[in-house]
């Protein structure tokens, strides 16, 4: 059992190494980000404790994946399996529990630790057999996959857009439009298997343009209802809305280039920082986009030629 946890620790460190971060630094950074975000959440909303519990439980529930649990059960004896599951759920729950205690929410802290232990006895099957239809079947796979993964977030974005019109809050409407593009960017955040690039019989340049054209077409399909709705109710802000839409496209294209600039690996921390800086300060994109484009061509040429 002890070796299992040593192995988990090694896996975590390997992931940090792959991200280009020294494990020791990664643990400290992770802790700082966790505490910072927790402070921010409790500072921002009065419902923070409940949101916090939801985030904690959804994180812990990832360990209840059926396939993973069946592997553990097949590998270890029943009693060791139960101890492992109980211990790993508790380890994951402790940072949340400690912060709740710090905030004086001892009842919720107790509830969280009890739920974490109870969840160690549950197995979830997150592989749904129900196929969610999408309008993106002609050009798979990013948006097809993305809509199926994050359909509820898209619904939320449309709901926020609807509310923006109802309460005549333009900024809220802009937020809903931005979130559709952010979700689009999320679909390009992880690299696909090398095989799915290798199968293309075209140049690296053409491959990138195909990917970008598909992304623009499908993100337009998702953003258009919001853009049209908001334009109809805020006609005097049409130029701003079109500006947001254009920046949305620009950010989406930057994300695609950033992904393939590290392909087939994941984006390294310096690349992610460069992307973040470009998004925070758009004039920087004039440097970031050509840089990512050149690197992407180089990376893709190695696979496509």
């Amino acid at each position, binding site marked *: 059992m002890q070796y299992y946890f040593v192995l988990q620790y090694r896996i975590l460190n390997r992931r940090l190494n792959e991200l280009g971060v020294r494990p020791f630094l990664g643990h400290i950074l992770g802790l700082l980000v966790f505490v910072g975000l927790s402070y921010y959440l409790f500072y921002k909303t009065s419902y923070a404790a409940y949101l916090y519990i939801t985030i904690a439980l959804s994180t812990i529930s990832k360990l209840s994946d059926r396939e993973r649990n069946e592997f553990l059960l097949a590998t270890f004896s029943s009693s060791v399996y139960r101890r492992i599951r109980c211990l790993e759920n508790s380890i994951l729950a402790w940072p949340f529990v400690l912060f709740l205690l710090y905030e004086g929410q001892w009842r919720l802290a107790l509830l969280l630790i009890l739920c974490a232990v109870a969840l160690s006895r549950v197995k979830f099957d997150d592989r749904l057999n129900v*196929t*969610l239809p999408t309008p993106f079947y002609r050009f*798979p*796979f990013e948006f097809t996959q993305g809509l199926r*993964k994050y359909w509820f977030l898209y619904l939320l974005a449309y709901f926020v857009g609807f509310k923006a019109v109802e309460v005549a809050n333009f900024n809220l409407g802009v937020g809903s439009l931005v979130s559709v593009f952010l979700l689009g960017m999320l679909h390009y955040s992880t690299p696909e298997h*090398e*095989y799915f690039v290798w199968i293309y*019989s075209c140049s690296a340049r053409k491959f990138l343009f195909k990917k970008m054209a598909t992304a623009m077409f499908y993100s337009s399909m998702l953003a258009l209802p919001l853009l049209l709705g908001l334009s109809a109710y805020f006609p005097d802000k049409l130029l701003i809305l079109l500006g947001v839409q254009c920046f949305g496209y620009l950010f989406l294209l930057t994300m695609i280039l950033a992904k393939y600039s590290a392909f087939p690996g994941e984006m390294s921390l310096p690349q992610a920082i460069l992307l973040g800086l470009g998004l925070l300060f758009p004039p920087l994109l004039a440097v970031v986009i050509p840089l990512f484009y050149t690197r992407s061509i180089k990376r893709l040429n190695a696979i496509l030629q």
Partner: protein
Amino acid sequence: MIEIENLSKSYGQKQVLKNVNLSLSSGKVYGIVGENGAGKTTLFKCLAGLETGTGSISSGYPILKNQLGFLPTNPYFMPKITGSEYLQLLCNARNVKMTNFQAKNIFELPLDQYAETYSTGMKKKLALTGILLQNNDFFILDEPFNGVDIQSNIIITAIVQELVALHKTIVISSHIFSTLNDTCDEIHLLRDGAFVKRVEKADFQELDAEMKRFVLGDRIERLGLR
């Protein structure tokens, strides 16, 4: 014609392929046999351009991989993508215009279901259908018969024979000798990263017997089963 000359590949200190030479003609089926770790998959990846080694691989095509259908031992599938979307992706990648896959679904796969929920055999059949729809000229089938039911094995054998009739070049690896016997024109034995034997169809049974002798040796006696 595809010519592999002096192909070598190393991972760190370990040399996986050692000066491999092979000529592949169109309209022929080549079997590659060897123990696990002999270098079969590395050879296929080098042929596909997914790995780079030293030596040369030449063909009449400007870029060989654009005419190549590669069926890996364990085909890759993305989560939340249906069987028909997988086929669409493979067709789009080779500019093959096709949208209705039901007519081509000869393995009767549930194309509207997520491919990740398929069984091992169904995944292999979907991946094979995909590379067949791409209209490739050259095929590498890495253990196409593994995990597939007997009925589908019969279909796959018939597909290979049809591809030969269409003058395609096929390289197959299999651990089931009878499947190679049914499909191959010649078999190459790979041992420790080097080809040690080339056998034509007339001598397949002799090769089978020799492999059994070499592999078994006195291993079973050493076990001392009682």
